[in-house]
Every structure is written in C-alpha cells, then in structure tokens.
C-alpha cells in the first residue's frame, strides 16, 4: 500500500531514476580514469589501439628522461599558477571591497566585471593577442610570455571571484565594524583583524579554486602562443594535448602525463573537497 509515506521503506524504483545520471557520470570519470591508467601502461595509438605492455615506462619517460619536457612544462605551469593566484587575489578582493563602498553603479559594475566569465576563452585569447602586442610585445619574448598569458587569465577570472568575495563580505555583520570603529580602529586594522579572519572560508575557497583552475591552463597557450616562444609557455595540459592528439602513437605517454597532473593536483583537490563540504550549501 502506498498510503504511508515511504520514508523508511526501500523503494527499488529509485535505482531506475538514478541510473542514467549515475552511469554517465561514472563512465566519464572513474571508468575513464581506469581505462587511461590501463592505457598508460602500454604503447598506444588512438587508431590502432593497444600496443606492447611497457609497465611504468611511460611514467619514467615523463619524469626521468633528460629530453622530457614534463618538468619544464610543470615549472611553467607552477609559475603561471603563482602569478594567477597573486593576480586574482590582489584584484578581486580589493575590487569587491570597493564595489560595496561605491556610491553609484554597484549593480552595473557587477554586470560589467562579470562579462569575461561568460565570454568564450577562445575569443578572449584572440583579442588579447593584439592588446598585448601593443604593450611592447609581451607575448613575443620568452621572459614575459608566461606573464602575458597570466594577465589574460587574471583579467578573465577576477570579476567572477569578485562576486564570490562580495557574497563573503556581505555575510560579515556590520556590528563588528561598528564595534571596531568605537574602539578607534583604522581601516587597515579593520581589514586585518575583521575582514580577513571572517572572510577566511571564502579566501580559502577562492584560492584553491584558482589554483586548480590555473593548473589546467590550456586555451591561452594554445591560441596565443602555441607553447612558444622558446617553450616559455609550454604548460602541462598543452603537453598532454600535444602528445595525445598531435603526435602519433603517444596515447600511453599522454595518459601517464594526465595521471601525473592528477597526482600534482591531488593535494589541492583534497583541500577543495574539505572546503566544499564545509560550505553552507552542504547538508543543513
């Protein structure tokens, strides 16, 4: 009988409801990763399929071989991540604080600063090729090319993260500031002793998300520089891409590199999961 609400009863039909989503998500996550691990242990060509079993040779090749570009690309990527994190934090948080204080046009600013988040990265990269060329050819010199694509990344991400900070700032009760004002605190003291500590969750969230996103940087390098000049913008995701889809028969090697990238990111992903769980949208 269906009279009693089925809170405590097993409802097998639920499996039918979750099946489509569950199967698709699993196939394109864990199953894919499993398959790619299997592939990474072989010589593999996307067209001809499995070749010889090579054990961990693909990993060894990426990590230990002198001619390997993996470390170079990892160093470039890490440098990019550092620049992106500093850039995003130093723009989006001040912008959020200014936006709240602005006498006019707060809603308009929010809209305008958000535009890059809804523009295809390809389009952004194409336009910035020419903007950067006017600024002394930042893209053409190996010393500045990575900085140049980081500028683009920061320009693209700062508005979005400003919105996250705005949400975080609006959660801080005004009472704290009023109390500090009564005690004679100046703005800098307010910032260090109220804003930063109470914004900790948002700060960690934004930082970790930017780190994870920046480690995957690809489109700028692909569209703007093709990894050049002199491999100065060779990043890991681009290396994986090239080995998998441009060079013949390197699918096993590319899979190994994807796994190595995952290993590098793992720490940050763990922090992300923790933060994500502790955010208020999780089970109340």
């Amino acid at each position, binding site marked *: 009988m269906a009279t009693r609400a089925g809170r405590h009863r097993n409802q097998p039909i639920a499996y039918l409801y979750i099946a489509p989503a569950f199967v*698709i998500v699993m196939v394109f996550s864990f199953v*894919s990763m499993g398959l790619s691990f299997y592939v990474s242990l072989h010589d593999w060509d996307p067209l001809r399929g499995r070749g010889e079993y090579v054990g961990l040779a693909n990993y060894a090749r990426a990590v230990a071989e002198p001619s390997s570009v993996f470390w170079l690309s990892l160093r470039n990527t890490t440098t990019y991540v550092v620049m992106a994190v500093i850039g995003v934090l130093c723009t989006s948080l001040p912008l959020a604080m200014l936006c709240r204080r602005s006498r006019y046009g707060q809603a308009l*600013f929010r809209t305008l600063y958000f535009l890059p988040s809804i523009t295809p990265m390809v389009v952004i990269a194409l336009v910035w090729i020419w*903007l950067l060329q006017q600024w002394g050819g930042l893209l053409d010199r190996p010393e500045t090319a990575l900085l140049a694509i980081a500028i683009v990344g920061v320009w693209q991400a700062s508005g979005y993260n400003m919105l996250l900070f705005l949400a975080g700032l609006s959660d801080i009760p005004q009472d704290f500031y009023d109390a500090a004002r009564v005690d004679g605190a100046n703005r800098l003291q307010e910032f260090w002793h109220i804003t930063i500590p109470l914004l900790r969750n948002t700060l960690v969230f934004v930082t970790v998300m930017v780190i994870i996103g920046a*480690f995957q940087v690809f489109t700028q390098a692909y569209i703007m520089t093709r990894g050049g000049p002199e491999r100065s913008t060779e990043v890991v995701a681009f290396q994986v891409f090239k080995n998998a889809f441009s060079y013949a028969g390197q699918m096993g090697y590319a899979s190994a590199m994807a796994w190595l990238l995952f290993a590098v*990111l793992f720490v940050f992903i763990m922090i*992300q999961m923790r933060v994500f769980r502790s955010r208020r*949208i999780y089970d109340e």
Partner: protein
Amino acid sequence: MKTPDNPIRQKRLVGLWAFVIMSLGAVVMVYPYAYMVGASLKTRKEFATDKRSLIPPRFQIGERLKHMRGEDSALAWEGADWPVLKNYVDGIVYGQVDVFLLNSLIYAGVVTVIQLTVNALAAYAFARMTFRGQGVLFSLLLATMMLPAAVLLVPQFLVVNALGLVDSFWGVVLPGFAGAFGVFLLRQFFMNIPGELEHAARLDGCGSLRIFWHIILPLSKPALITLGLFTFMAGWNSFIWPLVVLSDQAYYPLTVGLSLFREESGADWPRIFAASVMGSLPLIAMFLLAQRYLIGGISLSGMKAQ
C-alpha cells in the same frame, strides 16, 4: 586623513573614490570588447595599418575632414565604402560562421535539456526516496567532482574512442548528459520542498513519477533555470573537448571554428573578430536577461561558468 569627526562626509568621500576606481576597472573590463567590435568593422588594410584605434577610419572625424579637404586619408583606400558589416556577412558566406553558431547552439541546447532531465531524476531519488546504498552511491557521485577537466580529457577521449563516437555529434555531447554538480545542487533544492504536498498527492494515488513531474519540478523552477543557464553557458564556451573529438569542420562549434580561422595562414583578423562578436553576443544577451538567476547562483554555490 580627513576630518574624522565627520564620518558621513568621510563615507561619502570614500564612496566617491571607490566609484572612480571601480570605473577605471570597468574601462579595463570593457576595453577588449570595444577593441573587438572596432576591429571587426575595419577592413584588413585598415586593421593592418592601425591596430591601436578603437574606431574604424570611416567613423573618425579627423579622417573625414582630411577626406573632405581632398587630402590623402584612409577613406580613399579600397573598402572604405564597403558595407560596415561586410566582415560579418563574409564570415557567414565564406567562413560558415552560421554553421558554427548553429552547431554551438545545438550542442549547448541538447546538453542542457538532457542534463537537466537526467540530473533532476537522480536528484529526486536522492532527495525524496529511500533505497539501499543511497549514501554510498551519492558519495561516489560527489567524489567525481574532484577530477579536473584537464586530467579527464585524455581518459574521456579514450572512452569515446572505444565507443566509436569520435568525430560525431554524440561524441561531443555524450559526456555532458549528466553532471555530479547538477545532481548535488538540485538535490539540495528538492530536499527543502515541504513533504505535505507529496503526502497528499500520494494519498490521491499519484506515483512517484507524477509527483516528480507535477509537484517537484514546478516548485523548483529557479534552481532548474540557474542550472540550465550555467550548463548552456559551459556548453557554448567549451573548446578543448570538441577540439579533440571533432575533425570534420562541418561539426565544429564556434569556439573550434575560431581557432581554425586563427591557424589559417594570412588570417583575416577583422573577420575573426566579427565572428568573435557573433559568438559572444548570444551569451551576453542571455546574461543580461537572466542576471538575477546567475549572480544568485554564484553567490550560493561558487558555481563555475566555464
């Protein structure tokens, strides 16, 4: 520091300065768009000689005056009297931008509709039903969110390749048919819908599918719209996945089409920018219309648009 004994005055001053700095920032945000639109209205020669100016020569008063005085000006060049939107038309006529745009629309649209349906069904089961293994299955689903897209690129390609879907419509859209984040977000929303309505419907003999369709979904419109918008935007902006799956140009979405134009030797930049404008406008229009859902969604969840 200005008169601390007059906090209202000081607050006004700070507000004014904040406005000024934010306005400067807004110029930095808008400038690339202005540059893109301006360049898309130039001829190739105009762009090649003047890469700096935002305004095409035909709209520059200085050039007009020079031209009227009979001096040598950019307006005497070939193309200065062409239709302003020639690059846009050429992009469609010679660069099949219309096909790319339609492809983008189809990919993003199909992914959005199917993902909403599939995610909502699963979210409903997780939120309102009881079954063995519920917690484990949900945790497993959530755990997939920790796998970054760049790491999954090659693995997902291997699966699509194994399914024989490389270079096909299904290969592009299939991985987007469901997403752990969407299930998670909708489940949160569904759990907050009061149970009384559901009980009443059950007493009237409604099955779970009818409850889902007639009670849960109509009450969840804001969440569905927010998730739908984000899914559509992600689909429209996606680049790497269609880039690796597709080789037949007829299937290209706009993002991949643009990168194709860029690779051509002697790339026609004004035309590339015209296509870029056409590719950016739909989402900007959509954003302006549905802003409250999007910004609300971000503040709520830190959802990512790209």
